[in-house]
C-alpha cells in the first residue's frame, strides 16, 4: 500500500459517517462518552481537512477516484478550493459538539443523546461529501444524508411543534431533493454520464436542448429551496428556531449552504456546457436583493431571539445569492467568502443565544432585559456577532459585504449595490433592539438576575468563535486570496 494524500480525501466524508454508526455502540456504556467520541471524530476530521487544505495550497487540487475507477466510470471526489469548505465545516462541528455536551442535559433526554450525536456526525459527513463530490448522483445521496439528519435534528428536542416544523422542512426539502434527482436523471438520459464535468463536456459537444436547460433550471430551483432564498424560505424560520441551539447553529450556518454549494455546481455545469442561464441569474440577483431586505425586515418583528437569527439567515443568503448572480470576480469571491463568514457569524450567534437560553430558560427579548449584566462574556460575544452580521467594519461580515458590493458597483449594477448596502440597515434595527435589551434596560425577570455564565465547555467555543469574527474581519484578505483562483476558473468557464 502506498499512502497518497489524494486517497485521504476519501476518508474525509467516510470518517464521520462510519463513526456515526459507532456512536450508539459507544453510548451503550455511557451516554456522555458518546459526546466525547463525537468530539474526537470531528476533531480528527477537521485535522485531516486542514492537512488536506495545506497540501492543496502547496500542490494544487487533490482528486480521488473511488475504487480506482477513473471518472466518468467511477465516482470522483475533488478536494479543490471549493471542496476545502469541508475544513471549516469540520472545525465548526468540533466547536458545536462540545457546546452540545452540557446543552443537551437540559433539553434532550439522556437516552436520545446517542442519536443526537450520531445525527451530528452524519450531518457533517454528508456536508463534506456534498462539497467534495463531482458526481451528480453522489451529490444527491450526500444531500439526502444531510437532509434526513437535519429533519431529525430539528425535532430531536421538541415535542409536537418541533415535529410539525420538521415535517414542513421535510416536505419542502424532499420536493427539492426530488427535483435534484429528476435533473440528474434528465442529464443522465441526455448524456449517459453522471460525472459533472463529463456531463458538461458532453452537453457542450451536443446540440443545445431545452431538456438540458430544464435540468439545470430544476437543479437551480432545488438548490434555491435548500438555500431558503426568499420566496422559498417558508420552511426555514420555524425549523431553525425550534431546533436546539447547537442544531440551529449547524442548520443555519452550514446546512443551508448546501444550496449555495449546489448553485456553484450549477454554475460550473452551465459554464462548462455553455448553456446560458442569463435570465436565471437575473432572477437570482433580483431575488437575492429582495431577500436581503425582506429577511431583515421580517426579523425586525420577532421577539424570539432565535427566530430573529433565523430570519437574518434568509437575509444573508440573499447576499450570497446576489453575489453569485452578479457573476463578476469580486462579487463571486465575496459571496463565497460570505459562505464562510456567515457560517462563522451565525454559529457564533446561535451558540451565544443558546447559552443565554440555557442559562436563563428565557428566549424572548422582552424577558431577557438586562441579561448583559449577568452574562457579560456571552453577551459580548453575541454583540460582536451582531456587529459582524450587520457588516460593521472591521468584522468578518464587512469583508464579504464590501466585496459583493464592489462587484455590484463594478458591474454597473448600482441599484443592487445600494440594496446590499442599505439592506443591512434593516438588520441593524433589530440588533439595536437586542443590544438595548441586553445592556441598557433593567432586568424584569428573576431568572435573568440569578443567571451565571455557562460552563466553559459552552463558553469556550462561543468566545473563540466571537474572536474569530473579529480576526477574520481583519485578515479576510487571506480568505479572499484563497478563493480567488477558483472563482477565476468558474467565471472563465462561464465567459467562454
Amino acid at each position: 500500500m502506498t499512502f497518497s494524500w489524494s486517497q485521504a480525501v476519501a476518508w474525509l466524508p467516510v470518517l464521520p459517517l462510519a463513526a456515526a454508526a459507532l456512536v450508539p455502540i459507544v453510548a451503550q456504556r455511557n451516554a456522555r462518552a458518546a459526546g466525547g467520541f463525537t468530539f474526537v471524530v470531528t476533531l480528527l476530521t477537521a485535522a485531516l481537512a486542514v492537512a488536506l487544505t495545506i497540501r492543496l495550497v502547496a500542490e494544487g487540487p487533490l482528486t480521488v477516484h473511488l475504487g480506482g475507477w477513473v471518472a466518468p466510470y467511477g465516482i470522483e471526489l475533488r478536494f479543490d478550493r471549493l471542496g476545502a469548505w469541508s475544513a471549516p465545516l469540520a472545525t465548526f462541528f468540533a466547536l458545536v459538539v462540545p457546546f452540545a455536551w452540557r446543552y443537551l442535559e437540559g433539553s434532550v433526554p439522556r437516552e436520545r443523546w446517542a442519536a443526537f450525536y450520531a445525527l451530528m456526525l452524519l450531518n457533517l459527513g454528508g456536508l463534506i461529501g456534498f462539497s467534495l463530490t463531482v458526481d451528480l448522483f453522489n451529490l444527491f445521496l450526500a444531500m439526502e444524508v444531510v437532509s434526513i439528519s437535519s429533519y431529525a435534528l430539528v425535532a430531536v428536542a421538541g415535542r409536537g411543534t418541533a415535529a410539525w416544523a420538521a415535517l414542513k422542512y421535510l416536505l419542502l426539502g424532499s420536493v427539492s431533493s426530488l427535483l435534484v434527482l429528476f435533473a440528474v436523471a434528465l442529464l443522465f438520459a441526455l448524456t449517459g454520464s453522471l460525472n459533472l464535468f463529463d456531463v458538461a463536456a458532453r452537453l457542450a459537444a451536443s446540440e443545445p436542448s431545452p431538456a438540458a436547460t430544464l435540468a439545470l433550471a430544476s437543479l437551480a430551483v432545488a438548490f434555491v429551496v435548500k438555500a431558503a432564498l426568499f420566496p422559498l424560505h417558508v420552511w426555514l424560520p420555524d425549523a431553525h428556531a425550534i431546533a436546539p441551539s447547537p442544531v440551529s447553529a449547524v442548520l443555519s450556518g452550514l446546512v443551508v449552504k448546501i444550496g449555495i454549494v449546489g448553485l456553484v455546481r450549477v454554475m460550473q455545469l452551465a459554464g462548462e456546457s455553455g448553456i446560458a442561464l442569463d435570465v436565471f441569474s437575473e432572477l437570482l440577483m433580483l431575488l437575492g436583493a429582495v431577500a436581503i431586505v425582506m429577511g431583515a425586515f421580517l426579523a425586525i418583528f420577532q421577539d424570539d431571539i432565535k427566530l430573529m437569527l433565523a430570519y437574518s439567515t434568509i437575509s444573508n443568503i440573499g447576499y450570497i445569492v446576489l453575489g453569485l448572480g452578479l457573476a463578476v470576480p469580486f462579487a463571486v469571491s465575496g459571496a463565497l467568502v460570505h459562505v464562510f463568514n456567515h457560517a462563522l457569524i451565525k454559529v457564533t450567534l446561535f451558540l451565544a443565544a443558546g447559552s443565554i437560553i440555557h442559562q436563563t430558560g428565557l428566549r424572548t427579548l422582552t424577558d431577557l432585559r438586562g441579561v448583559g449584566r449577568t452574562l457579560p462574556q456571552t453577551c459580548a460575544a453575541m454583540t460582536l456577532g451582531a456587529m459582524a452580521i450587520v457588516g460593521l467594519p472591521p468584522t468578518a461580515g464587512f469583508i464579504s459585504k464590501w466585496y459583493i458590493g464592489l462587484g455590484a458597483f463594478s458591474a454597473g449594477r448600482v441599484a443592487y449595490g445600494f440594496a446590499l448596502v442599505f439592506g443591512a440597515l434593516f438588520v441593524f434595527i433589530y440588533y439595536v433592539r437586542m443590544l438595548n435589551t441586553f445592556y441598557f434596560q433593567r432586568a424584569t425577570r428573576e431568572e435573568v438576575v440569578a443567571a451565571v455564565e455557562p460552563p466553559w465547555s459552552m463558553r469556550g467555543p462561543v468566545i473563540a468563535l466571537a474572536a474569530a469574527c473579529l480576526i477574520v474581519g481583519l485578515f479576510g484578505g487571506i480568505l479572499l486570496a484563497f478563493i480567488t483562483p477558483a472563482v477565476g476558473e468558474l467565471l472563465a468557464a462561464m465567459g467562454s
Partner: protein
Amino acid sequence: MEVLDLRPLLAPLVSFACAALVVVARKNVFWRRFWSLCAAVLKLVVVLSMLPGTLAGAVYHTPVITLSPGVSIAFRADAYGLFFALVTSTLWVVTTIYAIGYMERAEQRARFFGFFAVCVSTTVGIAFAENLLTLLIFFELLTVATYPLVVHAETPEALRAGRIYLTYTMAGGAFVLAGSLMTLSAAGTLSFAHAGILGLDAGRATLAVIFMALVIGFGVKAAIMPLHGWLPIAMVAPTPVSALLHAVAVVKAGVFGITRVIYNVFGADLLGELGFASYLGALAACTILVASVMALRQDQLKRRLAYSTISQLAVAVLAASLLTPLAALAAVVHLANQAFAKITMFFGTGAVREMTGKTHASQLAGIGRQMPYTMGAFTVAALSFVGLPLFAGFKTKWYLSLGALHADAWWFLVVMLLSSLLNAAYWFPIIHRAYYGQRVAQPERSGRRQGAGLDVDRDAAGATAASAGGKREAPLVLLVPTLICAAYVILLGTTAAVPGMPTSIALIAVYETFGLAGPVR
C-alpha cells in the same frame, strides 16, 4: 517625504489598550482613572512627537493589512490629519479630567470611560486614515462606540435618542460605504491623494452619485442641515460626552471626512470643473443661517449649543467647498477654533448644571456672580463665536472672507456677517442675564452636588450655597479644564505659535493640497 513609522498606528492603539484596561479595572476607581489619564497623556505625547517631523515636511505612514490590491488598512499622518489628531488628543486630556469630576457618581463608569477611550481612539484613527476604507472602518466604529455613551442614562428618553442617533449615523455609514465602493470601482484605489484620485473619465453622472453618496454619508455626522436631526436629540448624553463627541470628535469627523472627499478623493481641480461643490456650499450657507435662527429659539442650553454647533460646522463645510487655498485654511483652522470654543461652553454649561441644576438659558440670571470663572470662560467662547478679533473665531472668519473674495463669492461675506449677528443674538443675552440679571425667587431644582461633600471645593461651595447669589464656583476638576480651553481660545486667536497647534501645520496641509510651494519646502 514619506517615512515608514509605527506612530500613526500607535496613536489609536493606545486608547484601545486603555479601554481594555479601564474595563479590566472596573470597580477600582484609582486604576480606572489612572489608565484613562495615562492613555490620554500618552496619546497626546505620541501625536505631539510627530509634530516636529511633520513641520519639517515628513509624512509618517504605517501600512497594516492589505485586503486585495488597492484595498488596504493603512495609516498615514499628513499635516491635515495630524492637525485634527492634535485637536482631538489635546481635548481628550482636558475632557478626561473634566469627565472624572463630572461622572463621579454616575453609574456604569467603567463602561463610560471604556467607550470614551474607544471613541477618541477611533477619532484619531479617522485623522490618520490613509484611505477611504480605513476612514470608513473608524467612522463606523465611532458610531458604535458613541452609542453606549449616548444612551448612558438608560432612560427611555436616552434610548429613544440613541435609536435616532444610530438611524442617522448608520444610514450615513451606509452611504459612505456605497460611495467608497463606487470610488473604488471608478478609480481602482482608495488612497487619498493631494490631487484627488477620481478623474473625469469616470463619467459625470457616476461622479455625481459618488459625490452625493460620500457627502451625504459624512454630512450626517457633520450635521449639515437636512441631516442634522440627531444632534440636538443626542444631547441627552452626559455633558462630557456631548462636549467631546458632539462638539468635537463625531461631528468633526464628519467635517474632516467631507474635506477629505473634496480635496483628496475628488481634488479641487476636478470639483471646480464639475461644479458640485457650489451646491454643497449653498447648502452649508443655508445651514449656517437656519441653524442660527433655530438656536435663537432654544431655551435649553445644551440644545442651543447643539444648534450653534450645527451652524459652526456648516461654516467649515462652506469654507471647504469654496475650493480656494485661503478658504481651505479657514476650514482647517476652524476645526481647532470651533472645537476649543464649543467645548469651553459645554464645560461651562455642565458645571452650571452640576452646581445649580440649571439647564435653561432663562434660568441663568445672576449665575455670573455665582460662578465668575466658569461664566468668564463661557463669555470668552461666546465672543469667539461672534468673531471678535483676538479670539479664535475671528481667525476663521478672516481667512474665510479672504478665501471667499478669491472665489468671487461675495454673498458669502453676507452670510458671515449675518451669522455673526445671530451668534451675538443668541449668546449675548445669556451673558447679559448671567451678569446683570436678577435672580427670580423661584423654587429651583437643586444641583446634583448640593449638600453631599466629596471634595474640598464643594464643602466651601455648599456652605455658601444657602445664601442666594453667593459665590459657588465649580470644583477644580471641572473648572481647570474649562479655563484651559478658554485660554486656548484666546491663544488661537492671538498668536500663530500656539503650543501644540501651530497654524503652520494647517498651512502645510493647505499647501500640500493645492500643490503650492510650502513654507518649509
